[in-house]
């Protein structure tokens, strides 16, 4: 991997409420997040040289060529604009995409906007996923995403001897953390028993181990070093980026361990000069669309021993005041999951945590480096960004 010379900073962030059914259109949601990000950076739209629009499958919003359709709401009118789309991994991929545009020397300021309006899709956005399976060997059996996650969680639990009580604790932690997030959709004070008493949607997955259907948008502003230093005394630097795709045959992957997340993380750590991630990363936002996924991903990110993340969780290591706060925002399980916007929400959270601006969610200890990660495509991509100050 070559060394990139131009430094890139995050200088602003914005977020809409996450909710089950927004009155606003996708363009309108994008506008609220984008204008808030610009305002927080002290910039105006005319100061922005290029725009990245990130959104998941067109089939969610029900608008084909959704990125292009969102463009004017995202501030992209008559500007160079690109869509960033790797399914669920899109939100974290979007900062990588924007980083390229600035690091390359092509632009000094880039606005990155992520949007999802899943409530349009009826009867349930799940339907949009029914066509992702092999049309000869799998689709005739009628699989849906819940089956696949349940099969993966089951294999993960079996391989490492993890209990469903431990998995349920992820929901408890994240929904509790989200009580302090003003944009949260499904914050709650629950017990492990509450989670395990909720309906089984596909054993061993219970309803309260699944993130909700959401509408929402998030945005950040990226700037080159000389611009960042001129407009803020608290730039947050993009120190490392990484992404990697495993095989598209989900059954050919190691279901108990997300190897592709490890490869993506190693790429980002190398770029950031991180040798001991468990000591050098102070706050983390791993992707948690399902409760077990947070643990799965923490292991892939090399932030927990393989098969031991559940034990760390039980011991409080991932609490907001623990040794490595994980999902201090409340994550997808608590704040909500408007796919691409949820990934960028995690980047916003790390930005606010490193600037000491996370309010009631602020983790102690003055964190200097943080990591956000997302996962998606055909359940096989890991996208990682390391931010620092």
């Amino acid at each position, binding site marked *: 991997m070559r060394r990139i010379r131009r430094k890139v900073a995050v200088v602003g962030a914005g977020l809409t409420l996450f909710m089950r059914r927004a009155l606003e*259109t996708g363009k309108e949601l994008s506008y609220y997040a984008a204008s808030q990000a610009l305002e927080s950076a002290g910039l105006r739209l005319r100061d922005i040289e290029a725009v990245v629009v990130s959104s998941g499958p067109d089939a969610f919003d029900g608008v084909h060529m959704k990125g292009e359709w969102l463009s004017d709401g995202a501030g992209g*009118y008559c500007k160079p604009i690109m869509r960033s789309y790797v399914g669920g991994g899109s939100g974290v991929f979007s900062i990588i995409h924007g980083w390229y545009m600035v690091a390359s020397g092509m632009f000094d300021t880039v606005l990155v906007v992520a949007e999802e309006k899943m409530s349009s899709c009826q009867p349930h956005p799940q339907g949009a996923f029914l066509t992702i399976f092999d049309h000869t060997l799998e689709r005739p059996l009628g699989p849906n995403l819940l089956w696949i996650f349940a099969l993966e969680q089951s294999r993960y639990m079996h391989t490492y001897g993890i209990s469903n009580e431990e998995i349920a604790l992820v929901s408890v932690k994240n929904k509790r953390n989200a009580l302090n997030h003003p944009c949260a959709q499904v914050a709650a004070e629950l017990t492990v028993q509450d989670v395990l008493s909720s309906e089984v949607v596909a054993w061993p997955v219970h309803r309260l181990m699944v993130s909700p259907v959401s509408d929402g948008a998030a945005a950040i502003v990226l700037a080159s070093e000389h611009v960042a230093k001129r407009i803020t005394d608290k730039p947050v630097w993009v120190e490392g980026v990484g992404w990697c795709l495993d095989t598209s045959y989900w059954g050919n992957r190691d279901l108990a361990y997300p190897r592709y997340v490890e490869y993506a993380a190693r790429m980002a750590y190398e770029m950031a000069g991180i040798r001991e991630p468990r000591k050098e990363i102070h706050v983390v936002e791993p992707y948690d669309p399902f409760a077990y996924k947070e643990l799965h991903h923490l292991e892939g990110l090399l932030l927990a021993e393989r098969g031991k993340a559940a034990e760390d969780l039980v011991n409080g290591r991932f609490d907001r005041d623990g040794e490595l706060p994980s999902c201090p925002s409340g994550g997808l399980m608590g704040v909500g999951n408007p796919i691409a916007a949820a990934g960028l929400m995690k980047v916003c959270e790390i930005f606010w945590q490193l600037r000491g601006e996370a309010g009631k969610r602020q983790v102690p200890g003055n964190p200097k480096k943080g990591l956000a990660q997302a996962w998606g495509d055909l359940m096989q991509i890991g996208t990682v960004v390391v931010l620092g100050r």
Partner: protein
Amino acid sequence: MGIREKPTRMDQVQSWRADFPVEYLYTTGVAGERFAKTLRERGMLAATRCQRCGVTYLPPRIYCQRCFADLSESWVEVPLQGVIHTYTVVPVRATGEPSQSLEVIAYIRIDGTEGGILGRVAVSPEAVYIGMAVEGVLAPPAERRGAVTDIRYFKPILS
């Protein structure tokens, strides 16, 4: 060796039929709800105006796409009057049936705005021309649903 045969019939190769089973319930949005209400209740087109850029947006949007000003409180109403900006003539027919008549489809620039609206024009293909002044004909108030189809068609303004 790669592709060796060129099938010429759909049923010549083994296949499996399926659909993409979703449908949509779109929100009209902040700007869209105001547009619909104005059309239904007053028979006018609601547009938003950016004072700074001097632009009136139709379809209306709650932001200025040029300067990102918040236009959610900056509304104007304009009548259903404009000029044919461009048009086409298409056959009217049920699927598979031979054409029975022709109709004129036009993009109509609405006076006083930057934009306009797509509509059918009740005029013969021989008589239509680019630049023709037209006005919209609305459904009676009781039949309006707050949708663009409340504008039944456009017709030439006779001078």
